[in-house]
């Protein structure tokens, strides 16, 4: 056996267990989902017809609620990608700059990740529906007296706030790790050359941690497009369908309303295509800007 075949064989042996589970529980279901998206299967009936791309055409041209949920999700993604990364990076810089209490602060900020977002959503539901109205009785906090869940203008922000609460800590840990990897002598050299704190951050630290920024934006893009549990536990997509995100729209299509599994699969495939396209563009754009060390 030649050396390269043996190498390939070893690779396959090591990869096989993971690949087997991956194939059984992700790959086959994903391909199956794609197959059903081409049919009119309703989940119960053993027989179904192949309808080609009709589901896709219907979702993209005739389904107002789906298009609305797509628009809502896009708006959510834009705010989340920007806010989550900005706040996480800002906090990471502040935490890293402190001598004392670093570990305690990191633990506190990371804590929401240990709570499932469904539970987090319910806890915030309690805050929004009971605690904030109570606080708003104080004259100084009158501005809190909004119907956070009932009014779509505010429930959008309620969802953003809860998602930030759950997501910032994780990114912050990534950025803290990246900041720790920036050699101190580079920053010192910048200071000696007369840079102030902002200059040193902008021209030394930021380029050095840019690979982590790529990861951070990738993670937020990906998770915000698929957001489900926060919205599900907080507003349930309501009032009406005003805060319905794509994942919730798909879920309802499959399990709540008409059991149109085929049609729901088509919508999920559209969501996958959008996520794939946008993250690929993002990775390509940001990888180009990363500096080589």
């Amino acid at each position, binding site marked *: 056996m030649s050396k390269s075949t043996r190498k390939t064989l070893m690779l396959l042996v090591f990869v096989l267990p993971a*690949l087997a589970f991956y194939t059984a529980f992700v790959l086959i279901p994903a391909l199956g989902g794609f197959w059903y998206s081409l049919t009119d299967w309703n989940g119960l009936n053993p027989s179904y017809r192949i309808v080609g791309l009709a589901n896709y055409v219907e979702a993209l041209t005739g389904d107002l609620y789906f298009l609305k949920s797509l628009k809502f999700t896009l708006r959510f993604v834009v705010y989340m990608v920007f806010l989550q990364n900005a706040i996480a990076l800002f*906090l990471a810089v502040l935490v890293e700059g402190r001598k004392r209490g670093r570990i305690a602060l990191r633990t506190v900020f990371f804590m*929401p990740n240990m709570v499932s977002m469904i539970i987090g959503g319910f806890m915030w539901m309690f805050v929004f529906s009971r605690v904030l109205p*109570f606080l708003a009785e104080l004259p100084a906090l009158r501005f809190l007296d909004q119907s956070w869940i009932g009014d779509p203008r505010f429930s959008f922000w309620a969802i953003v706030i809860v998602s930030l609460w759950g997501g910032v800590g994780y990114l912050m840990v990534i950025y803290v790790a990246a900041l720790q990897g920036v050699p101190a002598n580079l920053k010192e050299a910048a200071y000696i050359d007369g840079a102030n704190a902002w200059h040193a951050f902008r021209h030394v630290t930021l380029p050095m941690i840019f690979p982590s920024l790529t990861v951070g934006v990738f993670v937020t893009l990906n998770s915000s497009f698929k957001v489900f549990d926060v919205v599900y536990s907080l507003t349930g997509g309501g009032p009406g369908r005003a805060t319905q995100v794509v994942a919730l729209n798909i879920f309802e299509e499959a399990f709540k309303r008409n059991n149109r599994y085929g049609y729901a699969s088509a919508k999920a495939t559209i969501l996958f295509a959008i996520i794939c396209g946008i993250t690929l563009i993002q990775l390509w754009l940001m990888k180009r800007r990363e500096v080589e060390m």
Partner: protein
Amino acid sequence: VRTHQGPLGQKAAKIGVVLILTVYAAFTLFPVFMGVVNSLKTEGEILNNILALPALPQFGNYKVAFEKIHFFRSLLNTLLVVCVGVSGIVLFSAMAGYKLSRTPGRLSYLIFGLFVMSMLVPFHSIMITLTQVARTMGIQGSL
């Protein structure tokens, strides 16, 4: 944060940093704190003053919750899933990651791409067929 603004400016910056970090920590802990505090109160106390600490901590709510969700039974289920899941993930992904990172070439790159792509697949595109796979493999409802 290092600044070049003299001692007074430095002090102000430091206080600002502490203030921001404290506010964010409070924001992070607030819902958890509210949950814990109010879980120890009676419904009447919650209606009366939602922010106040319980006059006398009482664990009646916990008792009801324990019984309603069959806590020990679900804890056992969760533990089982965690143990099997984590050991499987650690073992298999470490094996795959080790060899993938050490073997250059097109095949290794392709497999790596395949694994990474799974991060992008929305759960909703696999959930329907996933239940079918579980049913054919006879593992549905076996926990």
